[in-house]
């Protein structure tokens, strides 16, 4: 039965209170541990299509008569269009239409950053479209430019009021503490650099608009496009069958979609608008820089008595302010916490969510600070973490928390530090560091799935979700196969099309598996119930003695055993249709994910080069559906985190405010040669309070603790406190020079 509830909804650490219609979730959880299909490693169902180049990504969409769009962008970090003349562009070879500022959502007269979109043309080829941009005559009025986030806060150039939080008596706790540490941490701007750049192909069919787009949320794009263009949502169809990464940057429609839609309407032809790699590095969003002025106070017995921080999120021209202080509020049982977060509005490209926004940056600051405190208190860092273990989230109980078990699993990796340190030589110093992880990942309603069973014994899961590339198709098929008692290869998953399946949640905030998995299981259970109802009639048995196991319908007494596909022949053209919905989250509980990383790093004390040699990543995300897919997620997160820690940095030209690192040789993503040994371990205990599945999300957790764990390994190796990301040679050499008790420079 559907129920109406008032509930708190969380996405990427942002909360809102909403009315929600939810279905009951009456299914009992499966027992813990590997089952027949769920909990066992499964290769990607679409792996072959992907590696053969047969999987249709948005970048592969070529519709008949399709035109190509190119976007004119502001050369100034802050300026207003005084006048613009599109007519000369329309005279250029191959050009069919042009749009200017104010005509399309996202194309504005005021450009708040160098690279802001102002106009676009559509032509027969992309080269013609791009060439035509040079014919557009723009007169600009340059405006005041602010790039420095501290200056922006001081001048009141901010996105919203400061966010303040306080519990206990911070000042008194600091005054009475045995040791107080103040340190400033800085994190850089990093870029998502999805393999598939942001892009859409739009085609009008009468009053209906088809949008093929690389997105994490087909329903979100559908609703946004309908709203902005004044269409009925059912007249917008959004398709994303395969996508080449998003990492949080593809949660909404984006101006490229509106450009393609407008130019398609103007020409009556399909239009493709795809960012180039250089544009992707400017205008596709970013993880914003932060400044974190932090305080930790402790007692000699290892109690953390106070934590405090002034955080500045340097947001750029747009985006939203993530909870950089979140880990400081949630990770430890500290009675006295005071934080304030400012959000600077500066003339740089807009922020977009990037894999655990806020918590990645905040965990770097906090977990480095905790290790510095441990060092000053002369307490083992793992011991300090155990001693200050939080048993509730600021008074709210956890639905499940197995961080203690993560620490237990980490012990053997932590114990390697004596042997690792002993492998140091004159030049290369080696050490081991750790950091804990806390983040959301519980997902939530609404989300729906259907199942369709046909007379050939095949099972289709139909839901208008999207597979961001994490292996969602495979995990959903595993869940349906488990519930229906059939082999994995009997199940197909049809997704990625708003006109072909019920509503499904966005693939962001580590929410896909915990939101969709229970709905898929419920839909499979509904189909199974119907199959057994029919079987009971066919064989004149009671329904309760029947089950499906190993692809066969069996009776409890063993007298009946018939292959499912043989039985289903009687369906003929009839179909069994199951439906399932995601039930509510547990009320009055915090649903969070936990983990710990233990890193072994080597530092060349002559040159400041840092190498990560081994990472042990241990995570507690409830039940693991596909251990193989889960390991891939952890490896990807760790590698992306190593890039964030050591090599990636968006650089701006200080004179013009333009992004300089716009290609993959200038913007240094890690390559396979930078990848260390990565050991993955999972606690793999279902969260007994969370849905019929007990699974939480794993998309974001693995990137959260890696930077601090590397920095703490650097400290263990050298005694140097690194405080800035990336840990460049410059930062490493600075930290070495300023380390406590360091010998005078020679």
């Amino acid at each position, binding site marked *: 039965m559907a129920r109406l509830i008032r509930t708190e909804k969380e996405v990427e650490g942002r909360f809102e209170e909403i009315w929600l219609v939810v279905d009951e979730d009456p299914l009992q959880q499966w027992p813990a541990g590997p089952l027949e299909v769920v909990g066992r490693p499964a290769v990607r169902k679409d792996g072959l299509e992907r590696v053969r180049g047969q999987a249709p990504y948005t970048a592969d969409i070529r519709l008949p008569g399709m035109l190509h769009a190119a976007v004119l962008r502001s050369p100034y970090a802050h300026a207003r269009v005084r006048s613009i003349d599109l007519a000369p562009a329309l005279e250029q070879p191959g050009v069919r239409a042009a749009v200017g500022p104010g005509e399309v959502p996202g194309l504005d007269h005021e450009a708040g950053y160098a690279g802001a979109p102002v106009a676009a043309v559509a032509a027969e080829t992309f080269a013609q479209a791009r060439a035509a941009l040079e014919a557009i005559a723009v007169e600009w009025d340059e405006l005041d430019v602010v790039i420095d986030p501290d200056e922006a806060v001081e001048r009141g150039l901010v996105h919203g009021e400061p966010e303040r939080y306080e519990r206990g008596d911070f000042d008194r706790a600091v005054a009475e503490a045995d040791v107080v540490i103040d340190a400033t941490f800085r994190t850089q701007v990093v870029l998502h650099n999805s393999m598939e750049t942001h892009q859409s192909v739009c085609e009008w069919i009468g009053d209906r608009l088809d949008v093929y787009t690389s997105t994490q949320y087909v329903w979100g794009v559908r609703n946004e496009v309908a709203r902005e263009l004044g269409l009925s949502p059912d007249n917008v169809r959004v398709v994303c069958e395969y996508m080449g990464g998003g990492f949080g940057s593809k949660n909404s429609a984006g101006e490229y979609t509106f450009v393609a839609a407008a130019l398609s309407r103007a020409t009556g032809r399909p239009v493709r608008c795809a960012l*180039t790699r*250089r544009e992707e590095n400017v205008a596709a969003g970013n993880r914003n820089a932060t400044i974190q002025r932090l305080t930790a106070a402790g007692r000699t017995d290892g109690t953390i008595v106070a934590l405090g921080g002034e955080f500045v999120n340097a947001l750029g021209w747009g985006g939203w302010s993530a909870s950089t202080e979140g880990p400081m509020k949630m990770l430890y049982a500290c009675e006295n916490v005071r934080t304030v977060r400012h959000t600077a509005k500066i003339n740089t490209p807009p922020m977009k969510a990037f894999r655990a926004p806020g918590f990645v940056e905040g965990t770097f600051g906090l977990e480095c600070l905790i290790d510095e405190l441990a060092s000053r208190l002369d307490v083992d860092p793992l011991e300090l973490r155990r001693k200050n273990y939080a048993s509730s989230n600021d008074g709210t109980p956890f639905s499940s928390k197995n961080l203690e078990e993560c620490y237990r699993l980490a012990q053997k990796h932590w114990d390697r530090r004596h042997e690792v340190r002993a492998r140091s030589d004159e030049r290369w110093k080696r050490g081991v560091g750790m950091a804990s992880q806390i983040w959301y990942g519980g997902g939530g309603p609404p989300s729906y799935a259907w199942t369709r069973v046909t007379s050939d014994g095949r099972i289709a899961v139909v839901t208008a979700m999207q597979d961001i590339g994490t292996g969602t198709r495979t995990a959903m098929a595993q869940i349906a196969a488990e519930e229906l008692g059939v082999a994995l290869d009997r199940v197909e998953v049809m997704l990625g099309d708003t006109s072909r399946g019920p509503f499904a949640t966005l693939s962001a905030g580590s929410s896909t598996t915990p939101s969709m998995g229970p709905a898929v299981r419920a839909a499979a259970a509904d189909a199974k119930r119907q199959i057994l109802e029919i079987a009971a009639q066919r064989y004149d048995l009671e329904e309760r003695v029947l089950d499906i196991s190993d692809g066969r319908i069996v009776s409890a007494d063993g007298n009946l055993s018939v292959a499912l596909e043989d039985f289903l022949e009687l369906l003929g053209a009839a179909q069994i249709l199951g439906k399932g919905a995601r039930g509510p989250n547990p009320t009055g509980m915090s649903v969070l994910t936990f983990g710990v990383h233990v890193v072994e790093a080597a530092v060349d004390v002559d040159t400041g080069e840092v190498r990560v040699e081994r990472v042990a990543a241990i995570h507690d995300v409830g039940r693991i559906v596909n251990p193989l897919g889960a390991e891939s997620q952890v490896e990807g997160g760790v590698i992306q985190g190593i890039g964030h820690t050591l090599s990636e940095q968006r650089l*701006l030209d*200080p004179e013009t405010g333009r992004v*300089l*690192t*716009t290609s993959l040789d*200038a913007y240094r993503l890690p*390559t*396979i040669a930078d990848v260390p040994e990565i050991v993955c371990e999972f606690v793999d205990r279902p969260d007994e309070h969370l849905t019929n599945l007990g699974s939480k999300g794993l998309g974001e957790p693995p990137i959260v603790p890696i930077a601090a764990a590397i920095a703490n390994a650097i400290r263990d190796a050298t005694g140097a406190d690194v405080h800035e990301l990336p840990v460049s040679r410059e930062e490493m050499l600075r930290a070495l020079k300023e380390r406590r008790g360091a010998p005078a420079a020679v």
Partner: protein
Amino acid sequence: MELLRPSSLAEVDGGLIVHGATEVVPLLRDGILQAETLVDVRDLVPSGIEGHRIGAGTTLAAVEASADVPEALREACRLAASPQLRHMGSLGGNLLQSTRCWYWRLRYPCRLHGGERCHAADGEHREHAIFANDFCASAHPSDVAAALLAYAQGGKLEPVPDGLTAATGVAACRSTGEPSRWSCRTVTAASPPRSG
């Protein structure tokens, strides 16, 4: 745009020469090079390793894999780009790369593009030359060039032989004492940009 695959040098008449095309295609895409005709010379340029001679058409992957090649040169190849690029890129093409200076690649009107100033000198130049940088602060990007120069000079910093100057500029190399652990980075002025 057309691609020619001539069977002898005599047939080459204009057009933009490409081998692995890992360098030329990005330059074309950025509008730094323009061409209507590309000439694929993979069948014409000497390739392979014989004693101390390495054909200009030998891929970095082949150099990396050859046991006959000194370790520092193999390491330099191994550190370059990615396996995919190393299987396409040639040794000759690697030495003829244009500078990776972001200002030049983004077509800022710098001296190498005929302008009046070096934007990197006043701007972001952390990855640029640390000496001999008055005219242009950019550095030659080739790790392989540094290794070759290190062998030519026995690991000491010396003036570069004339024949190599145009391609590689000056390289600073450091030896750690053991042959298998060289650190090599080019650190100074690039060759003048080539036109199409």
